[in-house]
């Protein structure tokens, strides 16, 4: 039984211009101790998915449907105070921009202690020692003294470590990391990812990793869900997505991944821009940018269906193309990339 | 050399007595003909003694020190708290401006050459609230203190030149011209001076206690020998006037106490509080805008007044509003043109612009309270006589005057009634071929500019408030060639006519009815043939009291008489 089982999740926002369909029927599950990566371009609904699970969307103007079963409780239906007790305790979250995610007017220590004391009735001393321990675990040097420092006295990478420490201080079952490395430079990115992997091993938390960077996915994920315009277009195990991708959008993402594209060869960006979620395109939402689009793509919404074949049973894709054709095309494309890489 | 005009000019801002202004909504008031302004006492009320009056000022006072006090408001206080050698009785006009002996036993004896003036002061006839008696020495003290250069009193400019040894006195020792001999206070003059009695009656000559220190900043505590004395004074804050227990003189003194608890009250709020009875009187609170509704509800002829509860009083000031026509500049140098202007202007119309009964239209140079005013003949019409004006212009053209004439008028900035008046003047003079250009100045700047000899100004839109009811204060000061100075002059028409200069100099030495007759005649002939001015109205003053206060008496020299007030 999965730790978190999300079914047909829909999140709509009422705005002055109309209803924004930010997440439009997404299902996935996260296993204990595993990492699920949610991948897609900005604005595809991946962050909103996480915020919805955490109950962090502004209540006014938000319509939420579906289920998110976490340890027998539907996070979308339970009492807000119940959910609050889960937040930061059983499910924690870290965010994209460590520079602004910490409150500038309180010390790191105060913010860490607060995280402990919000969920456990312990003394300040206890909260303090747990916080220091956690800071050490995320490899912050001189953790004891740095507890009294303010966020602006830390570098970006250090702040993200603090954020991670704060998220893990209550030993959560699930950590949601929303683009945790996006705002950091490449070296720091690698360090943070390494840290997260290591911590996952040590603490055994499951992770939902939201990113637009397949490179990050490659280093951490067990399962991957690719989202496009508020819908999941493909999901499966790490190997399915990287070696047997079946959706043209996934191909596009892989094609634009610098590390998979050989030196000298051109990066192949996906043409066009993501569609508006106010009035999403009919049929397959990718059809406007898809080079393989054909007649059924415009009127008919493709269902997310198991792929079958040599893929694992949970590899699923939402595409009208013939499975045979997709497999051949996928093979050729990847072969091409590999071949170039070997040259 | 007196310059009261400047002071009222400043008063216009400091005291809210907007002289040329009386601004506000005066534009439309159709009942603005001021024919029935009360000329003196309101009601012949017999007041009962006792009670306290709560009062406030919008603009406050300058000083209580008699050597320095010079606001209209402070003179009102001095009048209630001072004993002078001679005084004005607490009576409406005309009796109210007849000087009579007060601390002196009789009017002074003046030597035949007019150079020695002797007052006899019976010692102890008056006493200060401290018990100190008033003697001849008291007045010598007062005068010497005024003349001491360290005191910087404005009174120096009044009398220093006419008292022997006073001009340039260094403040040490005695002044040859000021002498005390037993109960006699003797002045030796450098030249005969017809205004010396009036000058000795000003508050500058208030009886002061012996040994009152010289204080250029003004003393803030002083004993008084009048019907009242100043019991306490905090500058810019409060003033308490109380009944003088030692007063045995004839002047009225009914109320026990008069408190000015505020020196900075907003005018509209002051009226509200007075209506409410929280305040009894704010002497400078009624604005032109308030004057009409207050008059209708509480004024002369209102139901309140009929029931003996009049609260709003409109009384005449010793003041004249006039256009001074610059005789030194070519534009209006021909007397015929100036006469034509006098026929063309609408005195009634201009007066209406001031506000409800804010003035009385006149063509006289001398205000009605001034001796000689009844002798001075009305010559010019109160409403325009265009045909006469044009006839005079034709005569002037025949005598070589070329039209159109361009004239530059100086008037006051930011005062609605002045702006309206200038529009009227422009229209009135147009048919005569006179093109008016108006330049508006801040009041304090206006008279300074006008007073510079050689100014390009052709007409000054002016007003003059007297220190005491004497024709000298109008004619000699404003129209004598001696008043033309390089700077800060007061003769804005730059009228310098040898014959009239001599006549005025001679008139200044005369006294009594002869003085009135002479000045009245000078005014009539001067305005008829030379017409250096076009006088157009006399200003009035508004006073609004709470329903509690009665016995209002308008003393023509000092205004509302504090000593006479009573609690109903």
């Amino acid at each position, binding site marked *: 039984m999965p730790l978190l089982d999300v079914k047909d999740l829909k999140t709509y926002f009422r705005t002055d211009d109309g209803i924004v369909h930010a997440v439009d029927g997404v299902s996935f599950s996260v296993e204990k101790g595993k990492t699920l990566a949610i991948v897609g371009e900005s604005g595809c609904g991946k962050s909103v998915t996480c915020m919805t699970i955490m109950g962090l969307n502004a209540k006014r103007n938000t319509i939420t449907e579906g289920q998110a079963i976490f340890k027998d409780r539907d996070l979308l239906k339970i009492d807000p105070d119940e959910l609050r007790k889960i937040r930061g305790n059983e499910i924690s979250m870290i*965010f994209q921009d460590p520079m602004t995610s910490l409150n500038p007017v309180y010390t790191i220590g105060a913010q860490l202690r607060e995280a402990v004391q919000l969920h456990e009735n312990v003394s300040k001393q206890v909260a303090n020692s747990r916080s220091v321990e956690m800071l050490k675990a995320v490899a912050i040097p001189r953790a004891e003294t740095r507890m009294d420092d303010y966020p602006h006295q830390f570098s970006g990478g250090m702040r993200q470590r603090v954020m991670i420490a704060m998220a893990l201080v209550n030993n959560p079952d699930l950590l949601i990391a929303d683009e945790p490395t996006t705002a950091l430079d490449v070296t720091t990115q690698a360090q943070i990812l390494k840290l997260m992997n290591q911590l996952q091993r040590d603490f055994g938390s499951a992770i939902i990793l939201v990113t637009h960077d397949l490179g990050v996915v490659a280093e951490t994920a067990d399962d991957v869900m690719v989202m496009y315009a508020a819908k999941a277009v493909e999901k499966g195990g790490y190997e399915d997505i990287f070696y047997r991708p079946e959706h043209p959008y996934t191909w596009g993402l892989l094609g634009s991944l610098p590390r998979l594209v050989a030196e000298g060869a051109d990066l192949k960006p996906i043409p066009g821009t993501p569609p508006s979620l106010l009035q999403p395109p009919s049929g397959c939402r990718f059809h406007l940018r898809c080079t393989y689009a054909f007649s059924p793509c415009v009127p008919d919404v493709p269902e997310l269906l198991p792929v079958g074949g040599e893929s694992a049973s949970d590899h699923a894709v939402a595409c009208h193309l013939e499975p045979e054709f997709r497999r051949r095309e996928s093979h050729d494309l990847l072969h091409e990339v590999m071949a170039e890489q070997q040259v | 050399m007196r310059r009261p005009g400047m002071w009222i000019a400043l008063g216009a801002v400091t005291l809210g007595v907007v002289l040329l202004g009386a601004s506000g909504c005066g534009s439309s008031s159709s009942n603005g003909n001021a024919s029935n302004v009360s000329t003196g006492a309101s009601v012949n009320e017999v007041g009962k003694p006792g009670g306290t009056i709560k009062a406030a000022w919008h603009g406050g006072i300058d000083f209580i020190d008699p050597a320095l006090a010079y606001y209209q408001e402070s003179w009102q206080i001095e009048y209630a708290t001072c004993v002078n050698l001679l005084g004005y009785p607490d009576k409406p006009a005309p009796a109210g401006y007849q000087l009579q002996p007060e601390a002196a036993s009789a009017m002074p004896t003046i030597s035949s050459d007019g150079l020695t003036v002797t007052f006899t002061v019976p010692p102890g006839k008056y006493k200060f609230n401290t018990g100190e008696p008033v003697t001849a020495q008291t007045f010598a003290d007062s005068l010497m203190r005024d003349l001491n250069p360290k005191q910087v009193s404005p009174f120096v400019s009044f009398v220093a030149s006419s008292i022997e040894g006073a001009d340039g006195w260094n403040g040490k020792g005695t002044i040859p011209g000021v002498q005390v001999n037993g109960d006699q206070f003797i002045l030796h003059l450098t030249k005969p001076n017809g205004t010396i009695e009036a000058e000795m009656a000003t508050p500058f000559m208030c009886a002061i206690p012996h040994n009152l220190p010289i204080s250029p900043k003004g003393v803030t505590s002083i004993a008084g020998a009048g019907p009242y004395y100043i019991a306490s004074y905090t500058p810019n804050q409060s003033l308490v006037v109380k009944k003088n227990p030692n007063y045995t003189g004839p002047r009225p003194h009914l109320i026990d106490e008069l408190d000015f608890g*505020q020196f900075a009250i907003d005018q509209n709020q002051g009226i509200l509080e007075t209506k409410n009875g929280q305040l009894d009187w704010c002497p400078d609170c009624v604005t032109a805008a308030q004057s009409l509704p207050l008059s209708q509800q509480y004024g002369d002829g209102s139901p309140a007044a009929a029931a003996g509860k009049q609260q709003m009083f409109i009384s005449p000031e010793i003041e004249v509003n006039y256009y001074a026509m610059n005789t030194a500049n070519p534009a209006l140098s021909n007397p015929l043109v100036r006469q034509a202007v006098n026929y063309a202007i609408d005195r009634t119309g201009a007066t209406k612009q001031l506000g409800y009964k804010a003035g009385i239209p006149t063509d006289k140079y001398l205000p009605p309270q001034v001796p000689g005013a009844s002798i001075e003949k009305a010559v010019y019409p109160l409403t325009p006589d265009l045909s006469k004006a044009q006839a005079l212009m034709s005569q002037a053209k025949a005598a070589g005057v070329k039209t159109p004439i361009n004239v530059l008028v100086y008037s006051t900035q930011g005062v609605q009634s002045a702006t309206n008046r200038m529009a009227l003047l422009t229209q009135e003079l147009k048919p005569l071929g006179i093109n008016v250009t108006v330049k508006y100045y801040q009041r304090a700047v206006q008279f300074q500019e006008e007073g510079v000899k050689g100014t390009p100004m052709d007409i000054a839109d002016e007003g003059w408030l007297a220190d005491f009811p004497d024709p000298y204060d109008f004619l000699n000061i404003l129209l004598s060639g001696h008043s033309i*100075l390089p700077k800060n002059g007061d003769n804005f028409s730059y009228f310098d006519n040898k014959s009239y200069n001599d006549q005025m100099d001679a008139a200044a030495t005369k006294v009594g009815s002869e003085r009135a007759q002479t000045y009245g005649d000078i005014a009539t002939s001067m305005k008829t043939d030379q017409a250096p001015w076009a006088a157009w109205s006399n200003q009035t003053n508004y006073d609004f009291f709470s329903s509690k206060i009665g016995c209002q008496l308008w003393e023509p020299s000092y205004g509302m008489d504090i000593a006479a007030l009573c609690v109903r």
Partner: protein
Amino acid sequence: MVRYVIRRLLWAVVLFIAVTLLTFIMFYVIPVNPAAMVAGKAATPAMIKQVTHDLYLDRPLYVQYGHFMKELVWNHSLGYSYGNRQSVNSIIEKAAPVTAAVVFGGAILWLLVAIPVGIYSALRPRSKGDRVAMVGVLAGISAHPVWVGYMLSLIVGYKLNLLPIQGYCNLRGASAGQSCGGPYDWFMHMLLPWITFAILYSAFYVRMIRSSVMETLNEDYVRTARAKGAPERTVIRRHALRNAMLPVVTMLGMDIALALGGAVFVEIVFGLPGLGYWAIQSVFTFDLPIVIGTVIFASIMVIIFNLLIDLLYAVIDPRIRLA
């Protein structure tokens, strides 16, 4: 920190010289001869000349300014009023507490109104309460304080007779001739001025606090606090408000400093002899020493308050401390 303070103080001195010099020059070019005023309405030319000399008015501008600064720095004297020859120090000493009473009382009142209303509006944007508050803000900003003052006097003071119409009472008790005094009278007489003063400012502050809180609520660290599982109350109080108050504190410092220079309208309408009243009065009467005195006092207030606010800011916001 010490260097920071020293830098601020040096800057304050420069500012002070600039302000006084500017005021001085402004009045130097005004075409009114103050000596004629001091000498009185009947002054002879000789007397005007004497007074002109006594007042240093016949010296060049820099000598006048030097003399003025010497008197100010050496003798702490701002000179004497041309109008009634009172020392300007004594006038300001009496006026400053009046203005301080208006301003601080008003500030407390407007904060008492603006903080809860602003926060409420920010937490429930577009709700009925918020809309009512925003209409109130618009009305408060649009209504001129003179009009508001008169209306309050007329209705609350005159018609309903609930509060005194106007006037100032000494806190320590009535001085001779004054009909009121003592803390109770003082308080009752200050209520309408405070309300008048607070209406305009609370309107500004509701709007400012609303937008500041709304902005802060969108900050990432507020989201972090929620994600930590902090209850909404804690999120707002502990995490949002302290940050949201930073700009408010800055504005408050500026506004109080400026208002201390003269809460002109309120003082005039309610007959409060404070600095604003004197500033206006002395400008009308060309009473230069009082004008300069109030300007200098006001600029000193602005300088001091800026310094205080800077220091306070450093206490609230740790980012400033090391900067």
